[in-house]
């Protein structure tokens, strides 16, 4: 397998979300670029605005509900923009544009895959999740199951997903900022880590949401302007855009066709499962459903998010092909080997210079930095709630902790996660972190998503079944990645991998569901009987919203 196609494969899994590998791999030895003054100025304005938001949010954050769920004060539309912001990461904006720049049509696959999970999340999960939970998705999974084991499992899977993501983001951020701003790698990582800890510890969910909304609006604005300018170059004709791309790209007409990103049907299905179900199982996105007042607003927020994400991915297709047509043939953007300066991920950045000049280049760079910052903040808050709300308040203290205590633990957890992310981000500088994102998506798709669906729709699910099945799914995902080509061959340089498939999601999903169902069906314990009889009350609350948190304030 050529290095380009294996890179495409690995990118596949992370494009819908954070920057990780997409940006991490561009790394290698990065030549220091001169300080980019307009970009840094605009980024500093963004930082000043977001710190203002954080100060305002800190004054409004009094209770645990404020801290974790913005007190249910976010409207459906605002939440939709924030959710879209979580998803429109630097990996989508820079990574997928770069993927189209190098591979053409194949990039569209990630756009389609990135969107497909959202309708499913809306139809199956969003309303019931909102009606059953308070702060984390573990609230809904463990609604009628034993709190101790269920929350421990859910918190473990959340922390695995979150920390893998955070490290991937940090490595991506360091590299990107080095390229865009001319800052040293460690300086970029420390800046991102420091700012995210400030937002999360002082501003909680209110700040995290508004930072995400601000960035989403900036990113949508920037990419819309870019898209319009590109289309303007081609008289707003797609055929002319594609014709110009075909003329420039070394692949010629093949740039408009699928290029063997998935080699066999089973890999295709497993990649599909990771994209589709992974989206619906990401803890930092599921957490957002608790920031709105009721199920109706939750539903509306997915509608808004789907619209924005769909629009964004269609724009990315224009930007990707625009980059081929307008940047590809120009020697000033290419190395002597004919590669893009700074790697494929710089395609969107170079494009902004071509169509709109230096000032807009600065704006787009600042937005890319802001994107990383907003996404890591959401991740950190989600990890901190798993530690403080699930593990500390519900498992360890068995709901005897005071609100102040729990928020205090959250803040400590956020600082600890921030430190961990900075240290690991620096430790993994220049390394291939593809496997981390693969694993994060596999765990979300193979553990969080099926357990949530089973808990909400299947009366027969028992604690024993969920814990055993979830653990099996978790271990299967880890084993498939470690013994698969991504780690075993690419990272450890063995000749071939014991597990031949690159995408673990489908295998871990099947393992998790099979074991969960079998163990639940054979569970004859008294607790299993109680859990089945508690299903009715859970069902009525889930579909009517009676007794849902926040409902009493209306």
């Amino acid at each position, binding site marked *: 397998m050529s290095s380009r196609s294996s890179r495409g494969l690995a990118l596949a899994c992370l494009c819908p979300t954070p920057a990780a590998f997409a940006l991490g791999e561009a790394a290698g030895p990065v030549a220091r670029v001169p300080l980019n003054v307009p970009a840094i100025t605009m980024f500093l304005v963004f930082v000043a605005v977001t710190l203002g938001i954080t100060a305002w949010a800190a004054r409004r954050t009094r209770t645990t509900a404020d801290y974790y769920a913005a007190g249910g004060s976010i409207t459906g539309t605002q939440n939709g923009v924030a959710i879209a912001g979580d998803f429109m990461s630097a990996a989508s904006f820079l990574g997928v544009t770069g993927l189209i720049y190098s591979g053409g049509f194949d990039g569209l*696959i990630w756009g*389609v895959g990135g969107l497909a999970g959202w309708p499913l999340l809306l139809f199956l999960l969003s309303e019931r999740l909102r009606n059953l939970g308070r702060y984390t998705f573990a609230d809904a999974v463990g609604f009628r199951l034993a709190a101790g084991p269920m929350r421990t499992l859910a918190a473990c899977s959340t922390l695995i997903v979150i920390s893998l993501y955070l490290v991937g983001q940090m490595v991506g951020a360091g590299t990107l900022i080095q390229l865009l701003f001319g800052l040293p790698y460690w300086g970029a990582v420390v800046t991102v880590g420091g700012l995210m800890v400030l937002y999360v510890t002082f501003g909680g969910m209110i700040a995290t949401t508004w930072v995400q909304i601000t960035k989403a609006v900036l990113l949508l604005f920037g990419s819309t302007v870019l898209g319009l300018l590109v289309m303007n170059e081609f008289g707003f004709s797609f055929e002319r855009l594609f014709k110009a791309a*075909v003329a420039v790209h070394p692949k010629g007409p093949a740039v408009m066709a699928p290029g063997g990103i998935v080699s066999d049907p089973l890999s295709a299905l497993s990649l599909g499962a990771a994209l589709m179900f992974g989206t619906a199982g990401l803890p930092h996105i599921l957490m957002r459903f608790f920031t709105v007042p009721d199920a*109706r607003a939750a539903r509306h927020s997915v*509608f808004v998010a789907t619209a924005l994400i*769909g629009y964004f991915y269609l724009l990315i297709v224009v930007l990707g092909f625009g980059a081929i047509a307008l940047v590809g043939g120009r020697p000033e953007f290419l190395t002597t080997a004919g590669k893009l300066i700074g790697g494929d991920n710089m395609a969107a950045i170079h494009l902004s210079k071509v169509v709109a000049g230096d000032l807009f280049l600065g704006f787009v760079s600042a937005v890319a930095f802001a994107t990383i910052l907003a996404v890591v903040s959401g991740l950190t808050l989600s990890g901190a709630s798993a530690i403080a709300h699930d593990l500390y308040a519900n498992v360890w203290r068995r709901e005897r902790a005071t609100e102040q205590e729990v928020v205090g633990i959250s803040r400590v957890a956020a600082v600890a996660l921030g430190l961990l992310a900075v240290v690991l981000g620096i430790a993994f500088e220049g390394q291939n972190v593809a496997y981390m994102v693969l694993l994060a998506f596999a765990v979300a798709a193979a553990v969080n998503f099926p357990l949530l669906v089973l808990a909400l729709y299947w009366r027969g699910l028992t604690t024993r079944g969920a814990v055993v099945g979830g653990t099996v799914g978790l271990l299967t995902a880890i084993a498939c990645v470690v013994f698969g080509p991504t780690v075993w061959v690419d990272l450890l340089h063995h000749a071939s991998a014991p597990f031949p498939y690159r995408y673990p999601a489908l295998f871990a999903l099947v393992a998790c569901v099979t074991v969960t169902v079998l163990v639940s069906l054979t569970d004859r314990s008294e607790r299993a009987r109680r859990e089945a009889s508690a299903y009715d009350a859970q069902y009525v609350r889930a579909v009517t919203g009676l007794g849902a948190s926040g409902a009493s304030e209306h």
Partner: protein
Amino acid sequence: MDQLYTRILADTDFQRLQRRRERLCLWLSLAVFSAFLGFILLIAYAPGALATPLAPGMVTTRGVPLGSSVILFGFALTGLFVWRSNREFDIEMARILARHAAQD
């Protein structure tokens, strides 16, 4: 609360409404799932079908409008679901809940 839940669960209007809601969720989920699966399977088994130009002499291939339509289709289905939920399900559910609340 438990008594109220039991009463609602036994309400035939509630059961009828839930059957309609759940059927819609199921069909919409299957529709979006099949569209996505179909696209993935075309890429795996018949990439040539996607690589065919829309018309002789054009460079735009069938895959471009097809992929974009999967995105638009997914969005259209979320719109349909939200529209029916707002216009129909929420109102009926509110009526059922109000009736039970009045009995308390």
